[in-house]
């Protein structure tokens, strides 16, 4: 039985484990219970700064701390990180201050709160900022592992986590996860699916559907969107010939966009992008959202077939 867990819990556990570094500080904007920084707050209240419901302030308090030698971890909902985009741009990324921003409850998968809470553009906007590393891990193990690597990064980062539980991919493989290196989870030669976040497990399901039709696919967890693991993508093109991307995010500017930028300029190959088709979500259960937005496993499988037809 596959263990189920939420990526935000991996983030919360990592903060606790990082606390032995006295320079690690946590910033909250009234959502610590949700982003899971609350565990750190309870254990280390002196190193937790409540910024209130003030995301713009939080980002720059982090910048001031980073400029003074601290390692700030700031979190809120993914959608509200966007409110502080210009602070991230001008006050964090531009001076290259290592503030680590976590946006939880990202994507339509966050569910019943509806479209106001379903960030489908966060990966795109933060990917446009020089110096910023952008991540969207798929399970609690990789989330924890990536978060634990951030103090050594020396530059700012954005990580999207998710509210709801998804299948755990990496139990016992924590040491294999590295920022900037995609992970091959399943091997096949007919097509390669590159996915992030909740869509990784959907892509595994799609691969199983396709195997019933005699189609074998490689599935990659591209937990780091920037810097993009282009060496891996190149090898996937050489092996499989066609690429499908899958993300719980607008088809504009996210993982599909990043892969398209690389393929079209360096390594031309047919590409199908599975994602939210430039529309807003609505209230619904997580699995219902993936269905209604046409990004669940059957839609990924269809995209693989379309890609193969383009060979």
């Amino acid at each position, binding site marked *: 039985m596959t263990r189920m867990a939420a990526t935000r819990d991996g983030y919360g556990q990592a903060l606790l484990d990082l606390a032995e570094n006295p320079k690690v500080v946590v910033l909250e904007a009234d959502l610590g219970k949700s982003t899971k920084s609350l565990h750190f707050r309870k254990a280390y209240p002196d190193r937790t700064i409540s910024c*209130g419901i*003030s995301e*713009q302030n939080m980002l720059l308090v982090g910048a*001031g701390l980073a400029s003074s030698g*601290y390692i700030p971890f700031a979190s809120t909902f993914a959608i509200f990180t966007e409110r502080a985009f210009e602070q991230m741009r*001008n006050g964090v990324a*531009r001076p290259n201050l290592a503030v680590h921003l976590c946006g939880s409850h990202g994507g339509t998968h966050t569910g019943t709160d509806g479209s106001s809470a379903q960030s489908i553009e966060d990966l795109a906007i933060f990917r446009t900022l020089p110096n910023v590393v952008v991540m969207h891990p798929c399970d609690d193990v990789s989330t924890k592992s990536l978060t634990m690597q951030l103090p050594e990064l020396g530059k700012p980062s954005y990580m999207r986590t998710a509210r709801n539980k998804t299948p755990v991919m990496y139990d016992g493989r924590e040491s294999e996860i590295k920022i900037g290196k995609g992970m091959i989870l399943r091997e096949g030669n007919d097509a390669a699916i590159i996915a992030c976040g909740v869509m990784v497990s959907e892509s595994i399901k799609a691969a199983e559907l396709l195997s019933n039709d005699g189609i074998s696919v490689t599935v990659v967890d591209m937990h780091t969107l920037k810097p993009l693991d282009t060496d891996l993508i190149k090898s996937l093109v050489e092996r499989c010939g066609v690429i499908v991307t899958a993300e719980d995010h607008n088809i504009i500017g996210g993982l599909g966009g990043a892969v398209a930028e690389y393929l079209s300029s360096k390594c031309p190959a047919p590409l199908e992008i599975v994602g939210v088709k430039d529309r807003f979500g609505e209230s619904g259960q997580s699995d219902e959202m993936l269905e209604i937005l046409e990004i669940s496993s059957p839609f990924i499988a269809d995209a693989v077939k379309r890609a193969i037809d383009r060979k």
Partner: protein
Amino acid sequence: MTFVNSKKITKASKVVGHGKFLKATFMTMEISEIKEFARKCRVEIIKMVYRAQAGHPGGSLSEIDLISALYTTRMRVKPNDPKWADRDRFILSKGHASPGMYAVLAEMGFISHTDLKSYRVLGGVCQGHVDMKWCPGVDFSAGSLGMGLSFGMGCAVAARLEDSDRRIFVMLGDGEIQEGSIWEAAMAARHHELGNLKVILDRNRIQNDDFCEVQMRMFDIPAKWKAFGWSVKEIDGHNMNEVMEGLDFLEQTNDGPSILIAHTIKGAGISYMENNPSFHGAAPNDEQYKQAMIELGEVSA
């Protein structure tokens, strides 16, 4: 004595106990010497903006008496070690008024007077807006309004976490406090009782397009800060005796954040720029440049 560019102006230095870390020295000046320091800075401001034929003279001239007094009598800094971890911080949140800060940094010895010629020039340390990645002595990359107070709050939290008694000075513009994020930071700084966070508000009454009163009435500004829990004092930002009293107030208020509201004149010191919204962001022409140099006593009429 850590102040290296002191050959003409230093009278005495104080030695200040500095937490458990270091002894630091800073310079003190007589009022007349600060005025001369500020006059020289005004000359450099006009030269920078004239050479570049771009930039922001008005707000640089309104702030310059305040920044000159702050650096020459209060700031615990080492111009020859600008990254000294336990230095006082100065954050020019109104980062477009950079010529004023660059002039002070040059007079203090953080950068050279030759560096001032790089203002707005490709590759220059004097970027259009103050930038910590380009210019020694600049503690924050500003230029986008409403950000410096939050950044300063982060620096203040860091100082407290380290049990350091370094102070964080932030200069805001009055138009700038129309940004909502200023009030996020104002609320948070008092919530966290950051007595090491000290703000100077350059109340010059003019913003980019017009007088503040026309663009966005702000009503009772001191009452707003008081309502957010700050200690408030108002002064004439060009009367050096009042400026010194105001800086005393900031230094002596340590039980919570404090703000010195300095009533200033946009373009102060150059007759045709004073209270003239046109010189918020415009350079003098040849004739105006000559007149400015006469008014500043650099050349005779």
